[in-house]
């Protein structure tokens, strides 16, 4: 019964919805992916160790942005996971891994805050209207 729903118009709508989601997903992944890569290929391995203090600063910044998104009830679970991983890696002395997680935490926190701001207006476009 469930599969019977698909009229052409509906399929089209679903397709466009899915593609919008994919684009957003890709954009989100692409974002953090780039940052990771730049962190990885940045310098030669022996110089690659970021100073502890700057990693801590990135974590602090990620926490700040995360808190702002949370305040707006738009926080993402992935941000919290990356913050936790970054903190753990840093205290274990794995500065590189800490940097990678910190940057991911920051980029996802930023994306969630952008989403919160966008959605505070964008939702209105989606409200169903009577079709008469």
């Amino acid at each position, binding site marked *: *019964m*469930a*599969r*019977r*729903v698909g009229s052409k118009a*509906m399929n089209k*709508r*679903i397709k466009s*919805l899915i593609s919008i*989601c994919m684009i*957003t*997903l890709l954009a*989100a992944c692409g974002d953090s992916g780039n940052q990771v890569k730049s962190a990885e290929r940045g310098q030669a391995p022996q110089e690659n160790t970021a100073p502890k203090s700057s990693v801590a600063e990135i974590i602090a910044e990620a926490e700040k942005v995360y808190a702002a998104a*949370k305040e707006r*009830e*738009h*926080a*993402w*679970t*992935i941000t*919290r996971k990356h913050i936790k991983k970054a903190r753990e890696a840093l205290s274990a002395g794995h500065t590189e891994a800490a940097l990678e997680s910190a940057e991911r935490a920051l980029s*996802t926190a930023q*994306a*969630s805050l952008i*989403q919160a701001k966008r*959605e*505070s207006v*964008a*939702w*209105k476009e*989606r*409200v*169903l*209207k*009577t*079709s008469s």
Partner: protein
Amino acid sequence: MNKSMSLLAVSIFLVGGLNSVNADPEADRLAMSDFYEKRFPAIELSAHKDGVYALDEAKREQWLEIEDFPPYEIAVDEGEALFSISFANGKSYGSCFENKGIGVKQNFPYFDIEKAEVITLELAINQCRETNGESALGYGSEEMGSLSAYMAFTSRGNTFAIQVPEDGMQAYEKGKQFFYERRGQLDFACSSCHLGLSGNMLRGEVLSASIGHATHWPTYRFKWEAISSLHKRFAGCNGQVGAEGLPQQSESYRNLEYFLTYMSNGMELNGPASRK
């Protein structure tokens, strides 16, 4: 009417007509009913009170078998016992509600003008306790689950007629906003799944319609192995898209419940229920 007045009237009409987010709950409800009627022409609107089982015949049959020996029965019995005990001051839950608390769930949530907030059944249960000198129950507690299950059970067959007074419009609109806002890393709104994709499969599950989402709570979920609230479900759905859920009975979830329940106006209460 002078010229500028009529100009104003025309522009209000134009703005209202072209760019309208309905500022009228009843218009929202009709638009949503209309949407599902067109999407599922073979399914009566009232059938959506059974959620996914209104849409999937095979799953419905399995579910009806389960409902022969309902997994929430124990909770209802426990709830009845809890409901009738006396507080230390000699009063009981019945003293806090209309009709002694029997068959009243259809009146929740409502907007309390004095307190300027949405009052859900669970919140009212705790307010009742506190007014009578008892400590509040945890919203995820077994006791809260059982009490609300019993109260839902006594309300079966009644219909929702949620009102939104002028003072309550802001809470209603906030609930509506929450419903339509995209959240989480997957960037989905409630409406993305339960309107736009309703009837489609997602990870082995058929997505149910939002109309009827409020009729059957609390619900026993086999996944939770317990009876639990609508707000726990909200948090679960937030989590599915990578968004952080909110605490049960937070203001935003109460507003969301207010909006969703209004969308179920005219539908029969059939809680508690069981779900996968």
